[in-house]
């Protein structure tokens, strides 16, 4: 039984989100901090250095950390306001259980653990070990990610562990592995500053990875040209040199067109291609198979602009290409990623100063989290769970047999489909709010209602946890020590700033206690603190592509971060990959991947004639569990809205600020219109951070990339109409 025990409105009243505000006139007379601790912001892959002020075991403020080299004191609004999570009224302070008709009532930790373990054992005895799944998240540190990977396999004994990075980094990871044999941005951000041309493909950097704008502007001040591919004029696109307003879901066609221009106008680097790559002939043939006229017709970008882009990219001597979810949230996510890499390889601009490429990790620890084990097909060090050698090595580190180590499990969306189909009966989740973040929220809600048991670990009661039987009060980012890995591949140190409040416990201690009670203590009992987990992670990652062996806590502190791979303690780390052109693929070369354009999963028709695309805003993070509780951020963007071009709005009789209904084959929302000329006239945009009746994911499509399993959040087909008011 896993439906909310009482009406959602009652739960909202009790558990929030209640936005915490700065008092009028500021914090007059607030206590001086007892200490100021250096750590990092939790709210995106930039992982900005920040100092938190503490008084009486509570975070009461912040101070920029100007010495930290990546962000040099800079922060976006999320970083500036993150301290308001400290002492938050919605914070979970005890474990709880679901009581029908009453809500969630506090229980002892003993009861929480006992119930959870009893249910795990019952369900697994009845339906088999894989019928109990675990869903995790990459707001967690490397240590917790590693621990959860090991816990799910050896204590929970399930193959079905996956994580919310499935909605984030998996297309980029798969594409990078295909092309380079390794999954990391190829350069530190310092190389952006020295690029003559910068190409941003589907990345709203000003809102989603704000510090990146500083690097781009430093390059522009030196004369760099900026090309932006996006269906909207994002803040960084506003002043760019060339904007390619692509129709959502058609990126691979556009990227083929740019490659074609490079080939036809002689901009390819034949010497580099011959010496350091493979697969060029097929890739070239695929690019030449589609005319620019055809590319233009599919992508909605004018032929002359495609040519301009090819020339701007082609003529430069140095360049940096970055992409993010805009091209990756697609049934062609991996195709789009390799199409970007094809442009980089065709001009041979990689592995040198000012010559770079990188995907921009979205989540706080999206990079490190995926490397170390809570992805359904990976083992620590970015190893492959289906590779016998990789398994043997991890078995030797973990002290288990091959039989004890489950195989490849299902992806997070597949797990939800299997819950819906009754194949998975039990769920343990931490740091993941799939009811808001998976596509087709109505389907997710139905699925959650079918679970026989669900235990959720979190610090605020997120909307998915409303469906839980047991809730365990876990820890916030600032309540546990650990490391994380930024979008650049820089491993940094997260410091403990305060203790978990009330009876809340550290996530690590919860997982370790569960492991012990599940009879797997022998694999976990030696962990005494986060550093001991990190030290095992170092060994487990040794020899893998994401090799952390040479990185220690002390080095991270002394050197303000260390870039992996770092195979030995004396190794300086690797800010820039591929300087030696020795790629990690089977033949040691960088691989071109030929891409043929495929249409998106949903095409417009008379019934659903408009394209919907979704994304983030600067003031919110992921499903909003944290940022919808921070007053200053809520004030910046209190509710979702529909961005719509005046031409389209006029056609439907919709005016600015008016309520409008948006409906897809999956569901609908009623939101206010924001009539703006900064979006394609055939497309509407809704930010996704809200639940329930305001959820953009009521509309999105359960269609996935065949390789990465990422959902097609960036393209669904909808119909629209004016509405008289909000939904009751």
């Amino acid at each position, binding site marked *: 039984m896993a439906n909310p025990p009482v009406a959602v409105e009652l739960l909202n009243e009790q558990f929030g989100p209640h936005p915490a505000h700065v008092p*009028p*006139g500021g914090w007059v007379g607030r206590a001086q901090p007892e200490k100021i601790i250096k750590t990092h912001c939790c709210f995106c892959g930039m992982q900005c250095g920040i100092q938190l002020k503490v008084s009486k075991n509570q975070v009461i403020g912040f101070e*920029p950390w*100007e010495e930290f080299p990546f*962000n040099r*004191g*800079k*922060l*976006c609004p999320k*970083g*500036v306001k993150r301290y308001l999570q400290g002492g938050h009224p919605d914070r979970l302070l005890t474990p709880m259980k679901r009581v029908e008709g009453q809500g969630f009532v506090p229980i002892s930790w003993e009861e929480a653990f006992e119930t959870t373990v009893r249910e795990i054992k019952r369900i697994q005895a009845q339906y088999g070990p894989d019928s109990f799944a675990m869903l995790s998240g990459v707001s967690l540190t490397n240590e917790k990610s590693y621990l959860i990977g090991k816990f799910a396999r050896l204590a929970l004994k399930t193959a079905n562990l996956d994580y919310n990075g499935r909605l984030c980094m998996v297309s980029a990871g798969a594409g990078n592995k295909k092309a380079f044999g390794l999954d990391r941005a190829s350069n530190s951000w310092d190389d952006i500053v020295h690029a003559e041309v910068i190409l941003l493909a589907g990345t709203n950097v*000003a809102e989603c990875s*704000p*510090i990146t*704008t*500083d690097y781009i*502007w*430093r390059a*522009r*001040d030196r*004369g760099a040209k900026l090309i932006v591919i996006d269906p*909207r*004029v*994002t*803040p960084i696109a*506003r*002043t760019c040199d060339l*904007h390619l*307003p692509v*129709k959502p879901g058609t990126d691979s066609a556009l990227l083929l067109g740019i490659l074609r221009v490079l080939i036809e106008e002689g901009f390819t680097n034949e010497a580099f291609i011959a010496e350091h790559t493979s697969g060029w002939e097929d890739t070239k043939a695929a690019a030449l198979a589609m005319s620019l006229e055809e590319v*233009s*017709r*599919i*992508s*909605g*970008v*004018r032929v002359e*602009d495609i040519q301009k882009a090819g020339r701007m990219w082609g003529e430069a001597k140095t360049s940096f290409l970055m992409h993010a979810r805009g091209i990756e949230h697609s049934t062609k996510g991996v195709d789009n990623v390799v199409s970007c890499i094809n442009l980089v390889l065709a001009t041979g601009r990689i592995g040198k100063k000012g010559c770079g490429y990188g995907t921009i990790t979205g989540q706080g620890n999206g990079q490190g989290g995926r490397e170390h084990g809570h992805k359904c097909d990976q083992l620590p060090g970015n190893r492959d769970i289906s590779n016998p050698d990789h398994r043997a090595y991890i078995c030797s580190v973990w002290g288990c047999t091959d039989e004890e180590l489950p195989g490849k499990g299902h992806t997070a969306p597949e797990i939800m489909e299997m819950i819906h189909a009754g194949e998975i009966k039990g769920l343990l989740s931490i740091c993941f709010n799939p009811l808001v973040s998976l596509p087709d929220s109505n389907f997710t809600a139905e699925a959650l209602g079918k679970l026989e048991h669900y235990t959720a670990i979190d610090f605020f009661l997120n909307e998915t946890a409303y469906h839980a039987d047991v809730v365990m009060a876990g820890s916030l980012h600032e309540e546990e020590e650990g490391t994380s890995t930024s979008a650049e591949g820089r491993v940094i140190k997260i410091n403990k700033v305060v203790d978990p409040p009330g009876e809340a416990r550290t996530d690590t201690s919860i997982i370790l206690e569960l492991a012990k009670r599940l009879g797997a203590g022998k694999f976990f009992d030696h962990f005494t603190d986060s550093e001991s987990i990190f030290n095992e992670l170092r060994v487990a990652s040794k020899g893998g592509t994401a090799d952390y062996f040479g990185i220690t806590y002390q080095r991270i502190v002394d050197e303000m971060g260390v870039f992996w791979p770092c195979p030995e303690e004396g190794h300086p780390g690797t800010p820039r990959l591929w300087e030696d052109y020795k790629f990690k693929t089977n033949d040691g070369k960088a691989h071109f991947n030929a891409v043929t354009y495929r249409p998106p999963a949903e095409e417009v028709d008379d019934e659903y004639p408009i394209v919907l695309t979704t994304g983030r805003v600067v003031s919110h993070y992921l499903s909003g569990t944290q940022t919808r509780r921070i007053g200053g951020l809520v004030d910046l963007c209190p509710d979702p809205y529909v961005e719509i*071009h*005046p*031409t389209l709005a006029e056609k439907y009789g919709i005016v*600015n600020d008016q309520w409008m209904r948006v409906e897809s084959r999956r569901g609908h929302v009623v939101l206010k219109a*924001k*009539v*703006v*000329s*900064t*979006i*394609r*006239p*055939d497309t509407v945009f809704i930010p996704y951070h809200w639940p329930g009746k305001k959820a953009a994911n009521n509309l999105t499509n359960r269609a996935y990339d065949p390789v990465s399993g990422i959902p097609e959040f960036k393209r669904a087909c909808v119909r629209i109409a004016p509405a008289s008011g909000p939904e009751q």
Partner: protein
Amino acid sequence: MIHLEQVQRADTVQTTPIVCMHCEDPACAAVCPADAIKKTPDGVVQSSLKPRCIGCTNCVYACPFGVPKYDAQIDQMMKCDMCYDRTSVGLKPMCATVCPSGALFFGTPEELAAERSGTPINEFIFGGKKVRTKVYLMVPAGTRALTVSTGALVRKSDLKQVVRQDG
């Protein structure tokens, strides 16, 4: 205390942070009947003094840059004071320290000119009246003073002009 304004959101995503320009001859202080707005010897125009401020909002209307804000909850005018608590002890103001895109910068006009393209200026002409300020604004190279008129600074974006229509 600074604030952010969206400039004609219908036409552009442009935003602009409103920081106090710290006028050489501040209109806000000139119109204050309670003499609540003081200028420090180093040229920083302070927020209103709490004991003196009567909440009349004259300054809100007088400032040509739209800086002072009246906060009804505390019945007092608040404005950017260049983070005097920070700048008077050698730190940068908070806004310029954290600004992720470098749109706000704290340093001398010479340092700014060396790092950026464009020219820093501190003379603005509002309807024929010249205002000189302590804070500089970056403008295209060659500009000496900026004549401010509504809408003149907005670069509109309309994607209808650049998307292919027949796709």
